[in-house]
């Protein structure tokens, strides 16, 4: 199953989005939060991203969702260093993207399909 990692400056935001994606998504997806700095304060930590990716990686690839700024940069840097080549940053809104990706991942879709679902979440208008 494709794994999903939610990267945010805020530990509680990442945990909340991961919880939403696990429960609102259709089926049981593997979603891990990587939120906050290593000391628990606001910020991003590449080590927390590493740990979360390792926790959800079953060999079918991992989708990263990031909130803004350094979360995005940290995600890109992680991918640059990652040798597996199967970790992808989705260009997607954090909450909707995580929920869409979780549903697709739980349906055992492949990495490209899960990423596309997350990125397609941009087109779901609210008004």
């Amino acid at each position, binding site marked *: 199953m494709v794994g999903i990692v939610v990267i945010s400056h805020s530990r509680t935001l990442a945990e909340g989005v991961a919880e939403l994606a696990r429960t609102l998504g259709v089926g049981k997806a593997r979603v891990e939060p990587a939120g906050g700095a*290593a000391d628990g304060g606001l910020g*991003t930590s590449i080590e927390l991203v590493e740990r979360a990716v390792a926790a959800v990686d079953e060999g079918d690839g991992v989708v990263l969702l990031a909130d803004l700024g350094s979360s995005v940069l940290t995600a890109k840097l992680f991918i640059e260093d990652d040798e597996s080549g199967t970790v992808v940053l989705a260009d997607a809104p954090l909450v909707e993207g995580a929920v869409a990706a979780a549903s697709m991942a739980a349906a055992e879709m492949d990495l490209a399909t899960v990423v596309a679902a997350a990125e397609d979440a941009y087109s779901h208008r609210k008004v």
Partner: protein
Amino acid sequence: MNGEQTAAWIRRAAEVVAADADRLTRLDAAIGDGDHGLNLDRGFTAAVAALPEGAPPGKTLIAAGRAIVSKTGGASGPLYGTALRRAGKALGDAEDVDAAALGAALRAALEGVQELGQAVEGDKTMVDALTPAVAAYEAAVPGGDIAACARAAADAAEKGAEATVPMQARKGRASYLGARSVGHLDPGAASTVLILRALSDVTEGK
């Protein structure tokens, strides 16, 4: 420049960042989230602690960059970390690097920062200090030693940073402020000046 001088640059950069941390944080509080000085101080303190004994310049910069990536916490971590790691990779295993080699490393650092952050000149970011700095460094390479090139780079970075004041931010947290970002010095450009001034001072034997 040998490995020991490279390590001295990182140590000096850490000193000046620590000394100016409050100013950087104040600049960032005006148009960002007010943590730039604190974050960079933490990152460079980690970089100094990670400096390898007796390593060549390239390995020294890679080790410093890696520490900055993991310990900084804000956007400056991935950006400065990438800059130092790319510079280090460009220097390879050479024990002693000349002015031209260091210039190529600085060019690689700039390219790494732009690739990661997608900023161009005029966006009100560190790129506005680093781009003219690398150009000035390269222009000084024919006939110039590392100290002369580094001084040209630091001077150009300072002018580039000052030029960010009237700009409206198009990248980074400040871009959410729109026109309200005008009239403030970009903190990332300001810290780029500090780091290049540290290189200039150390290579001049100050």
